[in-house]
């Protein structure tokens, strides 16, 4: 069974960032997969919070949207969206926010709004959603995003959610910011002194050169770079089970 692809490795690595007992705000897409995987493997007591209002949701299968009935039906409490953002997200009750990105720069600033100019975009992306306030207020932010020069860019076309600001020194938000960026190649972490995203770990079989080549800025590489442990059989089983249930449900 331990044959896996880079997307699976990415999802497994992202899931591992969630600790048991963490309160996790789960966004749509890969974050949804990673958080539910963590809950089915090493972090059974992590608490999933969905911006739709579901607190402590315990979905029986992977939800396709963040407003599926299973989330409300299994939650400890369901609150209104204004309450979710004011009393739960904004108040700083979220330990981990998982976010995606269409573009990300070296200081962890995220674009999910437009490619091109906002007034006349080349590509109109979905927009900010819940991310700006999650990025600001969650104690730790984990970004999950595949590496490519179009995605890992020198400057994002639009700042939808702030990481560490344009030069890495402008963050004023209460949370710690994007403490990890999990890609299909490895893991990036902000440099403790400059906040520049630095390659600290590689997935098995990936080279530094590949990571550098898929980054649109001159990627900093940590000394003594480490290898991420390969997905375990348990992780892969859980991940594929989630995915299959998603497919059968969809």
């Amino acid at each position: 069974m331990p044959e896996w692809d880079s997307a699976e490795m990415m999802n497994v690595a992202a899931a591992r960032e969630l600790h048991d007992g963490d309160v996790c705000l789960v966004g749509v897409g890969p974050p949804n997969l990673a958080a539910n995987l963590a809950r089915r493997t090493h972090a059974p007591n992590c608490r999933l919070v969905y911006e739709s209002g579901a607190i402590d949701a315990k979905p029986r299968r992977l939800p396709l949207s963040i407003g599926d009935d299973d989330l409300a039906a299994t939650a400890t409490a369901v609150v209104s969206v204004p309450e979710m953002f004011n009393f739960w997200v904004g108040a700083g009750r979220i330990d981990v926010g998982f976010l995606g990105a269409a573009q990300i720069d070296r200081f962890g600033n995220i674009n999910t709004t437009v490619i091109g100019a906002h007034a006349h975009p080349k590509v109109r992306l979905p927009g900010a959603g819940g991310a700006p306030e999650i990025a600001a207020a969650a104690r730790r932010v984990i970004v999950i995003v595949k590496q490519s020069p179009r995605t890992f860019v020198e400057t994002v076309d639009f700042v939808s959610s702030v990481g560490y600001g344009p030069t890495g020194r402008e963050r004023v938000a209460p949370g710690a910011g994007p403490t990890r960026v999990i890609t299909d190649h490895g893991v990036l972490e902000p440099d403790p002194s400059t906040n520049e995203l630095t390659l600290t770990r590689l997935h098995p079989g990936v080279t530094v050169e590949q990571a550098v080549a898929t980054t649109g800025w001159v990627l900093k590489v940590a000394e003594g770079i480490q290898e991420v442990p390969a997905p375990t059989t348990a992780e892969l089983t859980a991940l594929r089970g989630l995915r299959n249930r998603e497919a059968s449900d969809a």
Partner: protein
Amino acid sequence: MPSPAPPGTITALSEAIAEHVHDGDTVALEGFTHLIPFAAAHEIARQGRRHLTLVRMTPDLVYDQLIGLGVADRLVFSYGGNPGVGSLHRLRDAVENSWPHPLAVQEHSHAGLANAYSAGAARLPFAVLRGYRGTDLERQRDIISSVTCPFTGEELAAVKAVNPDVTVIHAQLADRDGNVMLWGITGVQREAVLAADRAIVTVEQVVDEFPERTGAVILPNWVLSAVCVVPNGAWPSYAAGYSVRDNDFYQRWDAIARDRDSFLAWAADNDLKESADA
């Protein structure tokens, strides 16, 4: 303030839309994944409404359809994707290529738009939140600004209130007096209804007495303009206790909406063609 329907008046959807939704109105059709008022949206299109400003946190398929049909001049929103699937192609085509005509955009974060509705519901001109800081969304100074706390000196985001002319929602139940009850994920519906000048609610069913439901929102008849019985009026979204989300259709929509011709064919098949001729 809402113009109240005589309590107990339950009307036909076509009448409610004809009476309360006018060309040029600012219209919010709300529902966060759950209870999205698709049937009412289609009725708005069938009646050929034009030049609407559409407000909604998550435009979803319902606004992809209305935008493709040429109903809207402007969109106020915070997340415009097909959740779990991908893009809203009609929304993209309108913004990127002005098809069927240009679409102006005002955009928020979820926190910002939720608070804008809340301020509207309280008839306050703005809301304060810890948000937007450092994002390019802040450049929209006509809707996003800042205030200073008079006690601590801290600078916080301010978001302009949203007060739709009409808010439309779908709910599970009305009672015979026209009071309305919804439960499950109730999103921002209470705030969107109370922020509006007029409110229309489609419901699955009319009952003599409401059941007990934890997390339910109840809206008294005197803040509603019309209540219409439209079973399955949220399809392909869902009504907890009545239907499940048609995830298949959400995925099929991607192919339908990706192409103008297949979209127009879908519209024709659904008696929605007229509005698209605009």
